[in-house]
C-alpha cells in the first residue's frame, strides 16, 4: 500500500457556490475531463457532486501537478488568485486522510450522510472501468471502502436526523410505526401546513384534513391533498379521529387546551395522538402533553432534538476521526516497513556482489595469505558500508517525514534497481 496520492479540489467549506458551480461537471463532461487528466497524470479519479469537485490523482513529478493546476484554471475559467484562495491541494497522508474523511461522510455538509460514499464509489468505478487507475489506486480504493464501512458500523455517525421535518416524521413512526392509513389534521392553511402536508403525504399518509378559520383557504389546501376542509368550531370532532395534528395558525390564545383534549382522549381507548405545534405564539397549551397518550412537540422541542442529534453526531465524528487517523497511520507505518525491507534487500544485493567479486579476486591471486585475504575483505566491507551509509541515513531521515517517505522509497528503488 502506498500513501502516494494527491488531491486538488474545492468543496462547500472552501468555496462559495459561484465558484463551485464553475467546476460542477455532468457525466459526459466528467469523462472528457478524466481523459484529459489521464494524459497528464499516472492515475486519476474525479469526484464531482453538488458540494465538491475533487481530482484525486497520482503524479510523482512536479510538472504533472502544475499541469493539473493549469487544467483546472482553464476548466473553470478562474484566475490564479481565486484558485489559490478556494482550492485545496493535499498530498500524501493529508490527501489520504481527506479521502477517507470524505468517504466516511465527515467532510459532508450534513455530517455522516451516506450518499457521498455511493458517489465516490461511482467515481472510482468509472476510472477503474476506463483504465484511468492502476494498481496504486485499487489498493487505496479498497482501504477507503474498508474505513468507510468501519466508521458506519462502529459509530453512530450515520444515525439521527438533523432536520426538524425529518425528526417530526421519525417521531410519528415511533408512535404509530406505519403512517399508512393514519389520519392527519392540519390546523391552519398557511405555507407551513402545506409543507407539512406534503411531507406526511410523501411518508404514506392518505387521509389529510384541514381545519382553518377561513373556509376558502381550508378548501383550497384540502383539495390539494384530496382531503376534507373543516371550520375551527369542528376542531374537537376532528380531533377524535386524528392520529397526527399539526398546528400552525395565528392566534392570540391556545386553540387546543387540556379541557378540550381530555374528553376527546377518553373516547379513543388508548389510541395515541401526536400533536406538533409549530405556531408562534403556540397554538397548543403545554399541559396537553400531560394527558395520557398525547405526545406534544412544539418547534423548540423538535429543534432541541435536532441539536441533540448534532451533538451526538459530533461526538461520534471524533471517534470516526480517530479511526481514520489510526488507519492512515497504519498505512504510513506499512511504508516504513517497506523501507526497512528495501534497506535489507539493498544490503543483501551489495553483499552478494561483494562476495562474488572477492571470491573472483581470491581465485586469481593465489599468493595471498589467509591474513591478507582477511585484511582485503575487511577493507572492502568498510568501503561498502561507507558508500551505503549516506543513502541509508538519508532514507531513514526521509521516512521520518511521512509526506516525503513515498518519494524517498521510489528514488531509492530507482537508484539501486531494487
Amino acid at each position, binding site marked *: 500500500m502506498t500513501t502516494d496520492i494527491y488531491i486538488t479540489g474545492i468543496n462547500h467549506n472552501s468555496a462559495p457556490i459561484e465558484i463551485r458551480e464553475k467546476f460542477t461537471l455532468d457525466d459526459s463532461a466528467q469523462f472528457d475531463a478524466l481523459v484529459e487528466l489521464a494524459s497528464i497524470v499516472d492515475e486519476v479519479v474525479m469526484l464531482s457532486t453538488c458540494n465538491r469537485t475533487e481530482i484525486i490523482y497520482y503524479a510523482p513529478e512536479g510538472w504533472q501537478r502544475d499541469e493539473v493546476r493549469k487544467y483546472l484554471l482553464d476548466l473553470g475559467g478562474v484566475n490564479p488568485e481565486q484558485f489559490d484562495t478556494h482550492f485545496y491541494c493535499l498530498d500524501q497522508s493529508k490527501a489520504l486522510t481527506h479521502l477517507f474523511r470524505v468517504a466516511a461522510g465527515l467532510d459532508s455538509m450534513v455530517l455522516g450522510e451516506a450518499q457521498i460514499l455511493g458517489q465516490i464509489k461511482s467515481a472510482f468505478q468509472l476510472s477503474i472501468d476506463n483504465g484511468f487507475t492502476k494498481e496504486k489506486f485499487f489498493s487505496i480504493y479498497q482501504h477507503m471502502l474498508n474505513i468507510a464501512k468501519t466508521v458506519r*458500523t462502529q459509530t453512530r455517525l450515520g444515525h439521527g436526523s438533523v432536520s426538524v421535518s425529518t425528526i417530526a416524521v421519525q417521531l410519528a413512526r*415511533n*408512535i404509530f410505526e406505519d403512517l399508512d392509513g393514519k389520519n392527519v389534521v392540519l390546523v391552519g392553511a398557511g405555507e407551513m401546513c402545506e409543507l407539512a402536508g406534503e411531507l406526511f403525504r410523501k411518508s404514506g399518509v392518505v387521509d389529510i384534513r384541514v381545519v382553518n378559520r377561513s373556509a376558502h383557504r381550508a378548501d383550497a389546501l384540502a383539495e390539494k391533498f384530496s382531503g376534507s376542509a373543516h371550520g375551527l368550531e369542528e376542531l374537537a370532532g376532528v380531533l377524535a379521529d386524528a392520529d397526527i395534528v399539526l398546528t400552525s395558525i395565528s392566534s392570540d390564545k391556545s386553540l387546543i387546551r387540556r379541557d378540550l383534549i381530555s374528553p376527546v382522549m377518553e373516547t379513543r381507548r*388508548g389510541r395515541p395522538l401526536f400533536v406538533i405545534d409549530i405556531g408562534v405564539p403556540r397554538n397548543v397549551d403545554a399541559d396537553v402533553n400531560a394527558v*395520557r*397518550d398525547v405526545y406534544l412537540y412544539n418547534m423548540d*422541542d423538535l429543534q432541541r*432534538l435536532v441539536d441533540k442529534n448534532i451533538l*451526538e453526531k459530533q461526538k461520534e465524528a471524533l471517534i470516526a476521526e480517530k479511526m481514520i487517523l489510526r488507519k492512515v497511520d497504519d498505512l504510513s507505518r506499512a511504508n516504513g516497513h517497506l523501507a526497512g525491507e528495501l534497506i535489507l534487500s539493498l544490503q543483501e544485493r551489495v553483499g552478494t556482489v561483494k562476495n562474488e567479486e572477492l571470491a573472483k579476486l581470491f581465485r586469481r591471486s593465489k599468493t595471498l595469505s589467509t591474513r591478507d585475504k582477511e585484511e582485503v575483505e575487511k577493507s572492502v566491507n568498510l568501503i561498502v558500508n561507507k558508500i551505503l551509509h549516506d543513502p541509508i541515513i538519508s532514507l531513514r531521515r526521509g521516512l521520518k517525514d511521512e509526506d516525503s517517505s513515498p518519494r524517498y522509497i521510489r528514488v531509492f528503488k530507482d537508484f539501486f534497481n531494487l
Partner: protein
Amino acid sequence: MTIFFFKTSLPFAAIALFAFIYYTYRRQREIFIVATIASVLTFCCLTIVLSSNILTGNVGAYVGEKSRYLHFAWTIMVIYFLAEFHYKIRLLGSILMPIALTLMLISMFTDNQVPAQSLPLGAVITFTHVALVFIGLGLMLLAFAAAVLYLLKTNALKKHLLSALDERLPSLPMLRRVMESAFYGGFPVLTIGLILGVVYAASVLAAGWIWDAKIIWGIANWLLYSILFFLRQSGRLGNQFLARGLILLFLFVITSFFFTTHESILDKSNMNRTPITTEVE
C-alpha cells in the same frame, strides 16, 4: 456427561449475561452478536443436560429444586429466541436473558432434592403442570420485558428525550403487540398449568395441602394476573396501566418464587408421607 455440559454452559452463561447487560449501555451490533452466540451455546448445553436427565427416565429430575431453576431458565430462553426471531427486538434479550442466566447461576448453589415418584400418572401430570406453569410464567416475563420497554419509550416520547428517536427501542405499536401477545398467551397456559397442579396436589398430598405457601402464593399470582386480564379484556386498562400492571405482576411472581422455593409442597409432602429422596444432577 450432564455435569460436564452443565459446567461448560456456565462460562457461556456468564459471557451472555455480561454482554446482554453491556448491550443496554453500548448498543452495538457486535456486542449483541457475542451475547446471542454465548446464549445459544448456553442453551445448547442446557438442552443436553435436561434432555439427558429426562431420557434417563428420571422424571423426578424435572421437579427437583435445581432442575426447576434450569427448566425455567431453559423455557425463558426458548421464549426469548422465538420472540427475537419473530419481532427482532434486541433489547428484549437485555431484560429476559439476564433473568434466565441468573436462574442458571442460582441453580449452581442449590441441591437437587426430589421426591420419589409413586404413580406414573402422577409423574405425567406433574410434568405437564410444571411445563405449563413455566411456559405461562415465561410468557409473562416476555410481557414484562415488553412492558418495561414500552414505558421507557413512552417516557422518552413524553419527555422529548433523544431515545424517542432511537430505532433500537421499537415503536409503541410494536411493543404493545409483543406485550399483548405474551400477556394473552400466558394467562390460559398458566391457568391450565395451575389447575393441573391443584388437581394433582389434592389427589396425592396430605390434608391441609391447600395452606401450603406455594399454593397460596401461586393462587395469589394467578388472581393478580386474572384481574389484569379481566380489566384489559373489558377495555378498562390502558396500555400504560397494563405495562405498569405487568411490572407489578412480575415483581410479585419473582418475590413469591423465591419465598416458596425452599418451602415447597413437595418437601411438605415428603415429611408427611414419603421421606425418600434422591439426588439428581
